[in-house]
């Protein structure tokens, strides 16, 4: 299958079906996350078109077929919501406003019925040599989208309402619970969140490695490399938006719990320095990918 076909079938369609076939999702917070997941996949399509990894005509059809519908859903969903409700409409929400400026501009264009595929590019331009590493990133991303633990973590720290979070997070989770969840990808909400944290860290490490590889291969000059890395980081940034107080607090709770379980499990087995290295590895992977960077907009 062409990479655009696989991207459409394997990554866009599952989210698109959740939106178009779910009559009325129970949880408004989950709806906000679904909207951001769709926007995120659109940003990958947008970048792939710019780099020449996705053919233009077929990508335009993909945009019209899937995204035009979902952006219409987003618009009507927003229009319908009374302002008096406890949570703000999606376009006024902190989650949406946390997206980088270029992404919000593209969403606005889409909501107005336009075709934003060629607007606000990263500045890297068409780069045949970058297609293979871009595809490697796409493979990682598509797997992340399927990862139920990573999704549960994302929902928990960024979208779940405070009462539900407190109730679920207060449930105990042992190393054994985490291990069982690790093997089966099923478990209590707390175990799934903890596993999701390690999975996101693993994803971040793999992405960082691909980005480092691009740098080592000298595919791009330093300005273009910066633009590329910046765009990749900005596509992901909403997943760990620590400028939101609630998210930062929950993220710290998860990190502390993982650290505690890790100490409990590894201290009897390995020297202190080795255990320290695992802690650092986990934290550093996320820091490298998600640290807020200044957004470099093309001239």
């Amino acid at each position, binding site marked *: 299958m062409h990479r*655009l076909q*696989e991207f459409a079938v394997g990554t866009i*369609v599952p989210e698109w079906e959740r939106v178009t076939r779910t009559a009325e999702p129970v949880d408004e917070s989950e709806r906000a996350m679904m909207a951001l997941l769709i926007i995120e996949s659109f940003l990958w399509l947008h970048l792939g078109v710019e780099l020449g990894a996705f*053919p233009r005509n077929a990508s335009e059809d993909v945009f019209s077929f899937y995204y035009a519908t979902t952006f219409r859903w987003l618009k009507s969903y927003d229009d319908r919501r009374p302002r008096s409700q406890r949570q703000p409409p999606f376009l006024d929400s902190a989650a949406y406003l946390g997206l980088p400026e270029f992404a919000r501009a593209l969403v606005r264009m889409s909501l107005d019925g336009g075709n934003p595929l060629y607007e606000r590019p990263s500045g890297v331009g068409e780069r045949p040599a970058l297609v293979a590493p871009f595809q490697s990133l796409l*493979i990682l991303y598509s797997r992340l989208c399927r990862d139920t633990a990573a999704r549960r973590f994302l929902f928990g720290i960024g979208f779940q309402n405070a009462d539900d979070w407190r109730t679920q997070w207060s449930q105990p989770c042992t190393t054994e619970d985490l291990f069982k969840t*690790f093997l089966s990808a099923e478990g209590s909400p707390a175990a799934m969140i903890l596993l999701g944290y390690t999975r996101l860290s693993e994803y971040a490490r793999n992405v960082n490695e691909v980005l480092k590889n691009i740098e080592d291969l000298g595919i791009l000059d330093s300005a273009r490399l910066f633009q590329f890395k910046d765009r990749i980081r900005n596509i992901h940034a909403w997943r760990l938006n620590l400028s939101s107080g609630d998210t930062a607090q929950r993220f710290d709770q998860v990190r502390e719990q993982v650290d505690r379980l890790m100490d409990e499990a*590894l201290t009897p087995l390995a020297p202190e320095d080795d255990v320290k290295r695992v802690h650092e590895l986990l934290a550093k992977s996320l820091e490298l990918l998600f640290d807020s960077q200044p957004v470099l907009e093309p001239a």
Partner: protein
Amino acid sequence: MGRYYSWFKTPNIDSFALLSDDPDVAGAIVFVHGFLGDPHETWYAFQDLVISHPTAATYWNKRDLFFFTYKSFDDGIETSARSLLRFLNLIFPSPPANILSILDDVHAPKSLASLDSPARAYRQLVLVGHSEGGLVIRKAVVIGEKEANPISKAKLVLFAPAISGVNPAGFYGMLMASPANWIALVSLGRSFAYRDMNSSRFLTDVTNDTLDARNIHPEHTALWAKVIFGSKEDVVEPVKWPGDNQVAEEVGKNHLSVCKPKRGYDRPITHITES
């Protein structure tokens, strides 16, 4: 030339293919990762580097790459070997239609169908294994001697294979080098794969079955392997089997880096093209 990715459906849900768009594609290369590894982490450097390698036009463009995954912690080696054999039967000599084209039951714009990849018929098969993946391949080869399977005519390239036992201290160190795999460390004793890799009886059986089969079917190329260890190997025992292609160790490479090509180290690529 381009290369496209396709995920497999259940039961091979985390396996994927990188398909060449060369009309003369003639072979399949199947990569098998190691203990708690995953196809991307272990092999991604191949994906990025084979396209620009000097052998791209003559070798890599003519081959599709398959990244097989399996339950490398829970399942014993024989179970994983049988799973690999089923996967090989699925893709060889022709891969399934659903990884080449969009099927009719998928909601997709019609224009996407114009991007479908043509059907292919492979004539050659290469199996590339790392660590536990090397042992899984060797077990699959001896099972394949008793059951019809394309594996017997395959060529084998094994990086740091766990075919002669593991070094527990190094094994612990390897698991601690991953953000998620440390979770399994405390429960290593519950892994059937780890049990088999540590069982001298199991390893001896696979070795003897291979050596016996060589006497009966010396024409079966899969009974011999090209085996490559790094000089800093400390996770598995770097011991080759008699009769295998005795390749010199890769100086300065360890258990993980020996199979990862990068700028200035393209030996993992040439080990395959010269197999």
